[in-house]
């Protein structure tokens, strides 16, 4: 058990029904002060629904959560005043400029009058939007809107921030700069609750990750812990220049006890942690079987492997998901 003051958010049996449909099912987890906590799951897993409950936007059907020590059922307004939220959709005011949107947020959150413009300008600078200062929100690009939406969650310098897919729709550079901003925030002691579709992003950024599927918590661990839990572990992929089905079958037999999967007529995958021994035996066997080694790649389990194994989703589903927001049900 961690000391109590280290926990900034605790979900206890958090549950949400929409009519008869169970969207979030009895979630129990806690978030520690100063960490980037990733909330990862396929489309429709219940990430946004969970964030909406945690940010006191919609009441849970059952269970509750304590945010900064306050019960979301009993102190919604106190919680809202103290947290920052960047929702899934960039829904600032179209008719206001970038600067005015931030100033309006400052007003809502009670930033002192004298500070407002300064704060807003500071955020525009940090998010590379300085030259869009006077541009109407509706005239910003999708990525700029996203960035401004995240910026607007920070006007009152909250110690806990919820970001619902902050980098979705951002180009590589903007996404990278946003990740840098998130790290900087963490270094300043801000706790970040982050949902994302990008597994690489979660891997790079998060201190701990909760995997959820169909509203249920599948597992919580560090990215390393999740990867280590993948049953197949490390592997080598080997391509032979003049391989054939028959020789590869023979190779598979003689590589025992290492597990070998034949990928096609010239490629195999060998699983095992002792890369040295695998290489040695492959070199020897390929000579004996009259094949010539063309390429060797080594693979570590990725977060994607862990995700696939733990959620039971097929790799195809994940690759579709990463391309864009295709809804996957079930």
């Amino acid at each position, binding site marked *: 058990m961690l000391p109590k003051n280290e926990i900034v958010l605790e979900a206890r049996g958090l549950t949400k029904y929409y009519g008869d449909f169970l969207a979030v099912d009895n979630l129990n987890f806690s978030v520690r002060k100063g960490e980037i906590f990733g909330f990862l799951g396929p489309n429709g897993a219940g990430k946004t629904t969970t964030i909406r409950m945690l*940010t006191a*936007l*919609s*009441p849970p059907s059952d269970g509750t959560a304590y945010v900064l020590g306050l019960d979301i059922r009993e102190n*919604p*307004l*106190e919680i*809202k*005043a103290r947290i920052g*939220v960047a*929702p899934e*959709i960039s*829904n*600032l*005011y*179209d*008719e*206001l400029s970038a600067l005015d949107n931030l100033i*309006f*947020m400052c*007003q*809502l*959150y*009670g930033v002192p009058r004298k500070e407002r413009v300064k704060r807003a300008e500071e955020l525009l600078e940090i998010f590379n939007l300085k030259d869009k200062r006077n541009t109407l929100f509706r005239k910003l690009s999708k990525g700029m809107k996203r960035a401004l939406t995240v910026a607007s969650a920070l006007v009152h310098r909250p110690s806990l921030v919820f970001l619902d897919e902050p980098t979705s729709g951002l180009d590589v550079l903007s996404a990278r700069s946003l990740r840098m901003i998130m790290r900087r925030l963490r270094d300043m002691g801000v706790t970040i609750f982050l949902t994302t579709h990008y597994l690489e992003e979660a891997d790079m950024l998060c201190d701990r990750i909760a995997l959820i599927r169909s509203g249920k918590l599948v597992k919580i661990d560090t990215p390393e812990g999740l990867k280590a839990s993948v049953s197949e572990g490390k592997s080598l992929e080997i391509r032979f220049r003049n391989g054939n089905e028959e020789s590869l079958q023979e190779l598979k037999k003689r590589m025992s006890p290492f597990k070998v999967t034949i990928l096609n007529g010239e490629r195999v995958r060998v699983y095992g942690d002792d890369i040295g021994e695998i290489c040695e035996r492959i070199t020897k066997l390929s000579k004996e079987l009259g094949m010539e080694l063309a390429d060797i790649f080594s693979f570590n389990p990725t977060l994607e492997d862990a995700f696939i194994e733990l959620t039971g989703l097929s790799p195809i589903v994940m690759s579709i998901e990463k391309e864009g927001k295709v809804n996957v049900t079930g």
Partner: protein
Amino acid sequence: MSRDSLRCIFYIILKDMRTYYLKPPSISWGIIFPLAWTLAFYLRHPQTFAQLVPGMVAMTAIFSTTAAEAVVINFELRVGSMERLLLAPISPGGIFLAKLLGGFAFGFLMTLVVAIGSSLALGIHLNVPIFLLVLIFSLLSFASLGAFICVSVKEIFEAQTLLNLPRFIMIFLSGVITPISALPHYLQYISYLMPLTYTVDGFRHAISQATYQGINIWLDILVLLVFSLAFILPGRRMLERKFE
């Protein structure tokens, strides 16, 4: 209500004023329409212009107050800005109040302009305290009625259409042009179910003072208050439901 909520309400009103109300469409809907309407009647019966003033002021009050409620409520619900506001330390009920008070504030400005303008132009003596009292409770009931209608439907056009229904029926049945006593009996019952009836009556008190015989001024105010509450309470609840 907490300080946070009050602050949010204040700044939401300010923002709605700036982005929606103080724009040509709302201003023209709020002023030009009642003016044109009154002018049309004036041209038919030129001797009675002073008679028409209370009705014109009342029409300005209802049209300006409800001019942009469909936009500030339905449009914002649709594009998600309402949800955005809810992230701030304010409850859905607080947002409902902010939205209707925005209509109230705009209606107050516009009606004041029209009332002051016409009483100066026509040399009408206005009992200011009575006028303000009636005005405040009228605006409150119109703004609540409008907000109630808006939250009970989804789309902007539905809200606009539904808003027009009471607006136009009230012009005919609330003594704006024809006195209620001149209406057929069965229509008079309906008249007394309309907030605008009490507004027009109240304004006549404020203008004609002792000579006017109508409904008791305090009854006018009480009824307007009851109307306001009857729209605010369920309207608030309906908006809350949208976020569950």
